[in-house]
């Protein structure tokens, strides 16, 4: 035998294993079992969940690009108006369709409006719409989806039926028709936000419903029921926080689809109406002269692409950071 046998009588006194010390720092986690299972309290500093997610998030290149990019775009939207030499409603009679210059950074369009000022204003509008719609959608989706699953039977069936019905309604046409009627009023943006939200919560609600269905059978929800905790409290306290990671991810992606929806509508002239402007309206206006005077089209389009890319990068990185099984755990 080449090796001391497991069982051989009188095996050599071979010391078992070297007690090499792992170059480890910080608190404890054991991959062999569930992280929570391995931890004994009262030793080492503990990362809070938020810090942990942030660390995993920051590890990905996409996350970094997304955060920095979005911060820059946000900065542009906030300080842009005070930076600009022109207001977006002011016509420069000396410069019609002039290319970018020191005076007009992004050039002007046919009407003599400053493209930079208009892009910033459009960006502001688009971002307001995007984030508002995404927020309303998540709230609606969480409440309706969770209720549909939690109450089951009749309530669930009705909510499910409404959800499915709204899914098959051609929302684009309806929004287009209604927003035509509100054209020119000061509330066209708000109207658009409400309309876009009303027709985009369904898929998220269905996902939330499916997630809730698996949560409802979990013991802590059953335990709460057996402890006479009211249903609404159970939903708000136990169900929704546990689908929050999905809601957060869905929010970032919802921003993208809301902005896209808004720009598409505005592009065709159905969304944000003049005198208000948005990136979509600008694109629609600039489309005709995209080949002859590209700056009219390129700058709003570029800002839109950067905005959407950054939010999308963030969403992807966030999903990986929250998902414990993803590969964002670093290397040994």
């Amino acid at each position, binding site marked *: 035998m080449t090796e001391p046998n*497991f069982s*051989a009588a009188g095996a050599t006194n071979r010391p078992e294993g070297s007690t090499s010390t792992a170059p480890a720092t910080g608190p*404890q986690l054991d991959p062999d079992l569930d992280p929570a*299972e391995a*931890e004994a*309290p009262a030793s080492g500093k*503990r990362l809070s969940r938020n810090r942990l997610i942030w660390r995993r998030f920051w590890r990905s290149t996409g996350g970094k690009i997304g955060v920095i990019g979005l911060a820059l775009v946000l900065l542009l939207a906030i300080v842009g108006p005070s930076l600009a030499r022109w207001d977006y409603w002011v016509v420069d009679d000396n410069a019609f369709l002039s290319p970018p210059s020191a005076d007009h950074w992004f050039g002007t369009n046919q009407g003599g409006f400053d493209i930079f000022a208009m892009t910033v204003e459009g960006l502001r509008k688009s971002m307001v719409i995007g984030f508002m719609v995404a927020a309303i959608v998540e709230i609606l989706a969480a409440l309706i989806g969770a209720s549909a699953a939690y109450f089951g039977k009749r309530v669930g069936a009705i909510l499910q039926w409404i959800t499915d019905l709204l899914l098959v309604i051609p929302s684009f046409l309806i929004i287009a028709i209604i927003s035509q009627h509100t054209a020119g009023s000061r509330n066209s943006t708000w109207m658009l936000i409400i309309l876009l939200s009303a027709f985009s919560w369904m898929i998220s609600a269905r996902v939330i419903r499916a997630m809730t269905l698996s949560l409802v059978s979990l013991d802590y929800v059953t335990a709460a029921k057996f402890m006479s905790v009211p249903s609404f409290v159970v939903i708000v306290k136990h169900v929704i926080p546990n689908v929050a990671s999905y809601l957060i991810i869905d929010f970032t992606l919802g921003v993208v689809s809301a902005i896209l929806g808004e720009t598409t509508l505005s592009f065709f002239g159905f969304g944000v109406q003049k005198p208000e402007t948005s990136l979509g309206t600008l694109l629609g206006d600039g489309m005709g002269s995209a080949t002859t005077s590209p700056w009219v089209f390129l700058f709003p389009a570029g800002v839109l692409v950067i905005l959407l890319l950054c939010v999308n990068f963030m969403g992807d990185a966030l999903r990986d950071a929250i998902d414990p099984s993803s590969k964002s*755990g670093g290397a*040994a």
Partner: protein
Amino acid sequence: MSKKDKPVFESDALPERQPGVPVLQIADLNVRFPSEDGVVHAVRGVNLTVNAGEVVGLVGESGSGKSVTSMSVMGLLDENAHVEGSIKLHGTELLGRSDDWMSEVRGKKVAMVFQDPLSALTPVYTIGDQIVEALQIHGKYSDAEAWDRALELLRMVGIPNPEVRAKNFPHEFSGGMRQRVVIAMAIANDPDLIIADEPTTALDVTIQAQILDLLRVAQRETHAGVVMITHDLGVVAGLADRVAVMYAGRIVERADVNDVFYHSRHPYTVGLLGSLPRPDLDKDEPLTPVEGNPPSLLNLPPGCPFAPRCPMASEECLAAEPDLLETDLAGHTSACIKFASLSDKKYEEIYPHEEIPAAAEQGTREDAEVILHVDGLVKTYPLMKGSVFKRRVGTVHAVDHISFDIRAGETLGLVGESGCGKTTTIMSILELAKPEEGRVVVLGKDTAELSKSDRKLVRQDLQVVFQDPMASLDPRLPIYDIIAEPLKYNGYPKARIASRVEELMALVGLEPAHANRYPRNFSGGQKQRVGIARALALEPRLLVLDEPVSALDVSIQAGVLNLLERLRVEMGLSYLFVAHDLSVVRHIAHRVAVMYLGRIVELGPVGEVFDHPEHPYSQSLLSAIPVPDPVKERARNRILLQGDLPSPANPPSGCPFHTRCPKFQTLDEADRARCTGETPLLASAGGQVDRQVACHFPEGVSVF
């Protein structure tokens, strides 16, 4: 292993059996994993040798590194794992080989039986196709030959009617049958080494007995070396030739199976054995839990990793980690510097005793107050068919006329295999709704007559502790909010909630200062204590315990069982204890009810039922429990049941057990007709009032 130091191998030939060379040699194996908090050193210098035809039991609690060790042998570790050391199969190094090469070795030379037979089979292919695939990848079989061999293998592992069953899909097999198929695939190519990773943990005890039997057969057929990974010392006692006990990523003791059980030379092994409830002995004193939790494998302090939990630890233990050295016994190694002072001491002499006050002597059982009375409880589920127009094609009798009662201060154990209706029974009781048939009376109040507000009041007296401590605590809430929840919604004075939570935490042995921590900061045993504290918040009279310790490690389980025992005595609680682990039931319960297919087949005081079971099902169930005592375990006569649990949608006529009943086989025609024709009712047996059995031909048998 990084790409730079990739070793060069002389030949790509697969390892072959060589005389005098062990099948498997693991030397100084170290495995490290990256994690958010640093590097986890999961396996720290493991040495292990397995010879042909030998069964080596690798025992340890979760996180001790046993599965990681086996996965390194199979080459199935995650890419980011860092593996060092040497793993040799027939003297050929396996570490650092390409995955293609390892694929050849896996299945042909080394086979693995996984814990979960459901996920080990592909649901979209038939069983036969999957075995044929395993055969054809590694051997030169024609389609027809492979199919014939697959049938032969299925027959070998005891699948009846293999010609038909081979064309079935995995979902058409029961858990036990699936595990048989997995074993058939494992032995398909006549491997030299079989690694069985908790092969029976997911199975019921009677099925476990069948599968362990089958593993013995498989091992004999292939003359392979077997590494048996398990946490169940009873399984090891019956199957293994040698045992290696792992703790914190190292082997702390290894020896012949008898030496490990009777002459332990490591305090951890002694503690494990001491904290194990025995199915064959009456409970006379509390278990001796091993205090504390296993250490984290991240940033392990110097010294013996077991020292913080060891009752014998002293200064020298903390100086350096002890090596695995020879002890006074031949072939027996231990990683404890004080093994000499351990020589054959009983665990009671080493581990401190927990004193549990004796229950106040009460009168006879008949005098005690009835806490829960269940009479003829029935719960059925409709069996629907059709997708558009659903029609009822049958009824599942999940619970079929069950009657029992629980008196004050008493623990009733409800045992049976999965699918026998234990959970449905307790859920029907906990719902406090009017049952389909029969009566449920809680503290003198019939649930059929409760109004909504009455129900809320009764709920306070009837609380539940769930099986999985992970799932029963909301991970997003701190412990304080979890324990305060029942108080908040049941009209407890707001001002006193904080002090009550503190009181409850102290009661279950948790540090009240930890109230702001989240569940994930607690170990499994501590989480279960939180669950118990929450259930006790409203001072219930009856606690329903749904497998409260089955998710816990043995050394932790003992502490929770002791806590439950102490609480029962101190607070005058009654327990309805549901479990599939009969050893635990023997330890904690006063009375036991054995369920089969929705019916109670035997009911009586726990000692009498365990020592002299009268119903043939109780007998086979009890005989299937592995006893952590090698000599006793190997000498026992198992009553192996044939086949699986019949579907409760279509139960056999007459006595539901007659299809599998060993007693039925020995009866003559007339008696058999009685079994198949007439359903036996629960009736007093042996002239005792509180001992009932549902069998036409009861006969007391000793199974331990």
